[in-house]
């Protein structure tokens, strides 16, 4: 473990210790927040009870579906937009302005169109995650060294083979950025959707606990959510680090 990683962990641990101390000194009251140690104990009990598993599974399936659709559809659309100059000229300003629009306001519309079910949650996740993947794919395809495509031409590769065996791997560092964005935004979209209005899910569990003033459950579920998202992000970061190291980019 290098010094930067050690310091990073020390900062997180220090913040947790500070909150623990403030809770124990009653500066932060139990009505406001449970201490980190109590949150951990509550989480263990909650998991052992089996209660959060259906919600966790519901959220996990929705999030994975949203990520998958965002990544696959985003990649295909990104390739098409990059390959068709006229289409690119039409949609580029829209893509650039997309994240300036609070797209989450369309969630009620999703419910009207798709119903109060997982489809509307997946849809809002995709709405948020798709564009980052499209933009990163276009960027990645733009930056493929021309010599790689000329090399592909020397092997008389078909357009499909060229895309999947040369262009796709050559654009990998940029695609990872797109996947990171798709994952982050899809998780945000699904959880936020569940939090506002849903039949199940981790976000709904947190919202219900919040409305019931059930701090023990709410903070335990928040801890579970944060831990899960952190594990996913650390995994992607590690994948990115390995790819970049292999490419000699870092």
């Amino acid at each position: 473990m290098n010094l930067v990683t050690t310091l990073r962990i020390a900062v997180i641990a220090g913040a947790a210790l500070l909150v623990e101390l403030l809770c124990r000194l009653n500066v932060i009251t139990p009505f406001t927040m449970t201490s980190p140690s109590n949150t951990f104990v509550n989480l263990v009990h909650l998991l052992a009870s089996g209660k959060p598993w259906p919600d966790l599974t519901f959220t996990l399936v929705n999030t994975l579906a949203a990520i998958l659709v965002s990544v696959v559809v985003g990649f295909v659309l990104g390739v098409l937009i990059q390959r068709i100059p006229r289409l690119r000229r039409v949609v580029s300003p829209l893509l650039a302005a997309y994240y300036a629009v609070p797209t989450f306001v369309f969630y009620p519309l999703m419910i009207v169109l798709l119903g109060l079910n997982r489809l509307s949650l997946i849809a809002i996740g995709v709405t948020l995650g798709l564009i980052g993947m499209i933009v990163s794919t276009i960027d990645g395809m733009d930056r493929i060294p021309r010599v790689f495509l000329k090399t592909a031409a020397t092997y008389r590769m078909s357009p499909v083979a060229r895309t999947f065996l040369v262009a796709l791997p050559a654009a990998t560092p940029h695609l990872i950025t797109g996947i990171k964005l798709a994952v982050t935004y899809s998780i945000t979209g699904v959880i936020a959707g569940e939090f506002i209005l849903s039949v199940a899910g981790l976000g709904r569990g947190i919202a219900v606990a919040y409305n019931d003033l059930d701090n023990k459950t709410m903070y335990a579920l928040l801890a579970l959510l944060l831990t899960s998202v952190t594990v996913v992000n650390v995994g992607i970061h590690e994948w990115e680090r390995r790819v970049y190291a292999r490419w000699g980019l870092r």
Partner: protein
Amino acid sequence: MIQAPPAAPALTVHLNEHVYDKGGRPVHALGEIDIALAPGEFFSVIGPSGCGKSTLLEIAGGLQKATSGTVTFEGKPVAGEVPDGVGIVFQEDASFPWLTVRNNIAFGLRRHGIDAAEIEKRVDYALDFMRLGDFADHHPPQLSGGMRQRVCIARTLVLRPRLILLDEPFAALDQQTRLMMGEELLRLWRSTNATVLLITHGLDEAAMLSDRIGVMSARPGHFVETLVTGWPRDRDSRVVSEPHFGELTAAMWTHLRAESMRSAPDASGATADA
């Protein structure tokens, strides 16, 4: 017209001109070109920067279509794609960073549907021939520039091309490595009996490696002189100490200097004399 060698040519390039569009403005890249390379010949092309050398190579290899003219490889017209039996090595590093050295070298073979045992045999031979055996499982970014270029040459070598087109393959390397890579290239050329068309900026490289050297004019590029080196086939970098080596480079420089000055009429005296 450059006199054709006596044997039936492996490659012929007969162009009237080649023009491309640059921002709505036509650029005359190449003028009249008429060359014929004999089977097994090592032909180098030198010329001032921007004279169309690389364009000529891409047209010869089928990567670009000439505006007007014909290209044949082994008597068949080169039309729209790189013909079977032609290998191209580019100036830029074209090794794929996501593949190991071994998989880079095997890449083209796998596209040609060759069976796994034969691929392994050819790749092992190429690794050994290009002295890359200890680095077979490395990825290109872990290698030096010279080694990465050897990977690209090995990737071409395993396909057993009958015509090898090289576009300034050693341009990014230091002088010492270039000389050593030149020897590797000669070794490769002798062992494969392939015809070689080398584009280079290096007068010494052209003088050391070639059977014939075509000197190109400034744009629109055409051949102003062809020099026959007269070196034996089993030559190596020691020819640089021969008096004839100096005569060849001097002859090339005489033409190149005139063409370079012609292509840069506003250049200062210092540039012209450089």
